[in-house]
C-alpha cells in the first residue's frame, strides 16, 4: 500500500469525532515552570519527548497531578525560527505519534519545522498521559443495528452495558476519568504554553476535535492567545444529537459527491456503474464496508487515499475480492496496540469519555428516535452512524456512546461567550468536509468576534490537509496574523 494511503487513517481518527469546549476553571498561575527535559521518545522514532506535571483537576492545582507527555520535532532552520507551534491533537484519541509521525506529512510538519519547534502532546487519558484503564471483558460488543433504529429494549441494553463498562473505567482509571472535557484539556494547554515559554501568547493549531480544545482555550484564556488556527471544526453550541446529525448528513453529501465524481471520472473503478447500487451490494456482502466508506470519505478526492480507494474497494468486494477491504480495515483500525490489556480496553472509553463529558449522557430515547428519523430521511445510507454505541470499532461517533454515561456533562454545550475581539484567531474549513461540515465552522466563526475565516473549496477533512492554498494561508497567518484579511477563499 502506498505511503499516502496512511493518510486517511489518522485523518479519520482525527476526524469523525466531534469536540467541545467549556468554561475552564481558572488555572492557577504557577511560578516559572521547571525547564523541559527533552529526550528521545522511547516509543516514537525521531521525536523528542518531555513530561510536565499537571493537576488532574485544574480547579485544585495543589491536588493530585499526573504527567502529561509532550512531543517535539525541533526547528530545522534556526535563521527563520519563530518559537514553538503547538499542534493540538484531534480525535479524541490521537497523540504525539499519530500527529507528528503518522499524520506528519498530511499536516506538512516538515514545512512547519522550518519556522517552529513543532510540539504536540498526548492529551489526558491517552497514550502516555495517564491512559484510561478498563476491564477488557466489559468492553461492550458492537450491536448497533445498521438498517433500523434500535428498539427501546436495545437502547436500554446498550445503556446498561455502557454503564457497567464506564463505571469500571472510572474505578480502574481513578480521578482523571472525571476530568476529560475540553475545558480540562484547555487547562493542560495553558500549562504547556507556560512550559514552552510562549510568554507572548499561545501559538497553536487545532484541527477536528482539536479545534474544540482550541476554542475551549480561547474561552478560558483568550487574553493569552497570540495566534490560533482552528480547522475542520465542530460546533459545541449544539447538542450531541445535532452534532452527530450534521456529521451524518455531511458524510451522505460527500458520498453523493463521490458518486458524481465516479460518473465523470474514467479513473474511478466504478466509472459507468451505479455507485449507490455498488455500495449497497458491497455492504450486503461485507457489512463493515459501510464503516470504511464513511471513514475514508474524509480523505476527499486525494488520488491515492480518498475516493479512488473507496471505489476500488467497492468494486473489488462486489466481485468477491477483499484485498483492498482488508488493507483499509487494517489501516483504518483505531484500536490500541498497547501491551497492557486494560490500557487497550481503555482506548474504547476515551472517545465517550471526552464526548460525554462535553455533551452529557443520552437518556431520551424518544427524542433520539425523532432526530434519528430525520437523519434516516436525509442520509439514508449513513443513518446507522447516528446510533453508533461503539465508536472505536465503527470509527464513528454516535449518540449511543453516551447512553449509560454515569455523570452529567461537565462542559455542556453552549455558545462561546460574547465579547472580546480575536483577529488573531482563524477559523478554517473546507467546503465539503465530511466529519465537520462548513456549517459548523460558520457557526463557530460567528461566535468569535473579529476572527478570520478561511474557506477552501475542497473535499476532505481539514483545510490545511486538503488544500495547498489553505496551508499557505495558515502558515502566513501563524507567522503574521495581521497580514491576513478577514476572509480568505481558496479556490482549491
Amino acid at each position, binding site marked *: 500500500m502506498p505511503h499516502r494511503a496512511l493518510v486517511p487513517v489518522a485523518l479519520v481518527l482525527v476526524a469523525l469525532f466531534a469536540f467541545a469546549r467549556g468554561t475552564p476553571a481558572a488555572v492557577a498561575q504557577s511560578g516559572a515552570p521547571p525547564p523541559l527535559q527533552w529526550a528521545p521518545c522511547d516509543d516514537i522514532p525521531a521525536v523528542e519527548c518531555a513530561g510536565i506535571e499537571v493537576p488532574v483537576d485544574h480547579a485544585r492545582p495543589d491536588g493530585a497531578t499526573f504527567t502529561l507527555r509532550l512531543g517535539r520535532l525541533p526547528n530545522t532552520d534556526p535563521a527563520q525560527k519563530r518559537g514553538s507551534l503547538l499542534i493540538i491533537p484531534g480525535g479524541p484519541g490521537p497523540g504525539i505519534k499519530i500527529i507528528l509521525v503518522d499524520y506528519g506529512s498530511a499536516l506538512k510538519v516538515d514545512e512547519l519545522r522550518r519556522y517552529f519547534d513543532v510540539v504536540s502532546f498526548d492529551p489526558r487519558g491517552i497514550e502516555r498521559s495517564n491512559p484510561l484503564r478498563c476491564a477488557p471483558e466489559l468492553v461492550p460488543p458492537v450491536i448497533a443495528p445498521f438498517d433500523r433504529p434500535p428498539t427501546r429494549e436495545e437502547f436500554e441494553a446498550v445503556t446498561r452495558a455502557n454503564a457497567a463498562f464506564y463505571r469500571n473505567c472510572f474505578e480502574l482509571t481513578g480521578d482523571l476519568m472525571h476530568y476529560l472535557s475540553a475545558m480540562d484539556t484547555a487547562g493542560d494547554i495553558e500549562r504547556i504554553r507556560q512550559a514552552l515559554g510562549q510568554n507572548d501568547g499561545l501559538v497553536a493549531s487545532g484541527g477536528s476535535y482539536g479545534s474544540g480544545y482550541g476554542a475551549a482555550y480561547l474561552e478560558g484564556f483568550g487574553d493569552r492567545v497570540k495566534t490560533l488556527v482552528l480547522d475542520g471544526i465542530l460546533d459545541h453550541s449544539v447538542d450531541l444529537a445535532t452534532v452527530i446529525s450534521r456529521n451524518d448528513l455531511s458524510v451522505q*453529501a460527500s458520498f453523493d*459527491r463521490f458518486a458524481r465524481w465516479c460518473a465523470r471520472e474514467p479513473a474511478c473503478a466504478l466509472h459507468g456503474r451505479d455507485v449507490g447500487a455498488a455500495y449497497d451490494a458491497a455492504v450486503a456482502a461485507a457489512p463493515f464496508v459501510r464503516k470504511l466508506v464513511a471513514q475514508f470519505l474524509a480523505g476527499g478526492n486525494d488520488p491515492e487515499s480518498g475516493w479512488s480507494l473507496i471505489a476500488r474497494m467497492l468494486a473489488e468486494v462486489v466481485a468477491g475480492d477483499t484485498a483492498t477491504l482488508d488493507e483499509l480495515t487494517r489501516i483504518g483500525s483505531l484500536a490500541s496496540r498497547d501491551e497492557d490489556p486494560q490500557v487497550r480496553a481503555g482506548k474504547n472509553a476515551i472517545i465517550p469519555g471526552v464526548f460525554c463529558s462535553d455533551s452529557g449522557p443520552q437518556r431520551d430515547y424518544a427524542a433520539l428516535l425523532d432526530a434519528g428519523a430525520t437523519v434516516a430521511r436525509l442520509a439514508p445510507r449513513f443513518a446507522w452512524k447516528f446510533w453508533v454505541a461503539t465508536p472505536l470499532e465503527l470509527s464513528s461517533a454516535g449518540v449511543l456512546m453516551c447512553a449509560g454515561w454515569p455523570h452529567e456533562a461537565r462542559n455542556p454545550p453552549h455558545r462561546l461567550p460574547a465579547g472580546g*475581539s480575536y483577529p488573531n484567531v482563524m477559523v478554517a474549513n473546507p*467546503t*465539503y468536509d465530511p466529519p465537520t461540515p*462548513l*456549517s459548523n465552522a*460558520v*457557526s463557530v*466563526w*460567528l461566535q468569535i468576534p*473579529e476572527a478570520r*475565516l478561511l*474557506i477552501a*473549496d475542497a473535499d476532505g477533512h481539514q483545510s490545511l490537509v486538503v488544500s495547498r492554498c489553505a496551508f499557505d494561508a495558515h502558515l502566513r497567518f501563524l507567522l503574521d496574523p495581521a497580514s491576513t*484579511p*478577514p*476572509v480568505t*477563499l*481558496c*479556490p482549491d
Partner: protein
Amino acid sequence: MWSLHKAIGGAHFLAVTLTLAGLHPAAGAAPSGAVDVASSPQVLQWTACPNIPDTECAGLDVPVDPARPDGEHFALRLGRAAAKDPAQRKGVLLIIPGGPGVGIDGMFGQLRSQFRIDDLRRWYDVVSFDPRGIGQSSPIRCAPDAVPPAFEPIGHPSLAEFRALAGANAAFFQSCFAATGELMAHLSAMDTVADIERIRQALSPNDGLVAYAGSYGSAYAAAYLERTGDHVKALVLDGVVDHSVDLPTLIARFVLSVNDAFDRFAQWCDQDSACPLHGRNVGTVFDAVAATTPKIRTAVAKFMAAGRDPRQGWPAIAQMLAQVSAGDTSALEKLTHAASPGGTAEDPWIVAGAKALPSGVLCADFGPQRDYEALTAAGAAVALRAPRFAWRFWATEAGVGDCVGWPSEATNPPHRLQVGSHPNVMVANGTHDPPTPLINALAVWLQIPEARLLIADVDGHQSLPFSRCAFEAQLRFLVDPTSVSTTTLCPD
C-alpha cells in the same frame, strides 16, 4: 477583475440599491402617469412605461393591510422586461428590489445593466415592482417643511442632540402618517411579502416563485420564505440583511464593514500607481478633507458600495479626494447630487416622503431606537474599531438615527428565521460587501436549513453585479436549483 467591471453600471451606478448604505435612489417618478388599476389582480394590463425605455408597466391591486383583504386597496406598480426569445423562455423571474427605496425606475433604469437585466431576459420575463410606499405604488407623502436635515454628527452625539433628533424626526414622521394614511403603518417586510405573493399569483399562479432578491430585498425574500416558503421554486438572496439581530447590531456591522472597505481602498492606493492618491497617505488625506468638508465622509461611505468600479468606486473616490484636497469640490457635488434621494418627482410631498420611506420600512422591521445609553455603548464599541466612520452609526440615511423618534413599535421585530428545509434557496454575498458584510449572509445561511451558499471574493455590494462567476452560478441555480452544489466559491 477590471474587465469585469467595465461591464458594470452606467453613470448612476451609485444610485444603487441600498439605503442601508445610505443610497436613496431616485424615488417617486412623475406622478402624472397614473397607474392603470386592473379590475382583477389576475389580469394585468401591460403598457409601455412612460419613463423607462424598453419596459412595460402594469398595476396590481393589493390591500393596504394584508390582514384585511377587504379593506382599503392601492395599485402596486409592476415593471417587466419581457423575454427576448419565447422559445427559450423559462418563465417569470421576479427581481425584488432593495433599498428600502428602490423600485422599477431603478431596476429597469439606472441599475439595469449592473443587474444584467437584459442578460436575464434571454431566459425570463424579468419582472420587478415599486414596493409599497415607493415610486408609483402609493408613494408616501410627508410635509416638505418638516423634513429634518440629515443627521451626521461629527462625533458622539450628546443627549441633547439625541433628543433634538428624536423631536425633529417624530414631527416629520407624524406629518407622514397624517398625509399618507394607513399605508404608513404597513411598510414592514411582512407587508411587502403579501404583495410579493399577490405578484406571484398574478404572474405565475401555477408555478412557484422564482426570484432574485438583493440588499434589503433579501429581507423581504426571507420574510416571504417564512410566510409562504412552500411557494418558492428558486430564490436567491444576495448582499444579505440579517433580521435576527437588532438595528444597532446591524448598523454596527455595516459601519465596521465600511471601515474595512476603506482600509482595502487605502491599501489598493498604496499598491497601484493608477490610484490618484498613490504615494500619499490615504487616511491622512481623507481626515484632512473631512475636517474641512464633512460631507465627503458621507460620500466616501456610500461610494464604497461600488467596490472597484472605475466610475463610482475606488478610483472615483480617490479622484474626488484628490480634487477636494486641492480645493475643487465639483466632483463631490456631482456625485452627491446623483446619489441624493427625491429624484425627479414633482410633488414636493412625495419628494419629502421618499426621505421617510427608509425609516418607514426599517423601523417597522427593527423598531424605534429610544435607549440613548445602550446606543452610546454600542456606538462606543464601533468607535473603538472604526473611528473614521463611527459617526455613521448614529446618522440618518442608514444609521440608527433613522429610527430615533419613530412613533410606534416594530410590527415585524427581529427574530431568527423559522423556516423548513430549503435547498431551493441560495444565500449569496461578496467577501467585502460594505453595507451587507459576509457575516450577515453566513448568519442567515445558518438559519435556512439546506440552503445553498455562494461566496464571491469581490469588493462591492451584492455579488451579482461584481462577479461574473456569481451571476452565472445564480442563473444556473434559478433555472435548476438542483444543478448547483451546496457551496459555491467564486474567486472573483
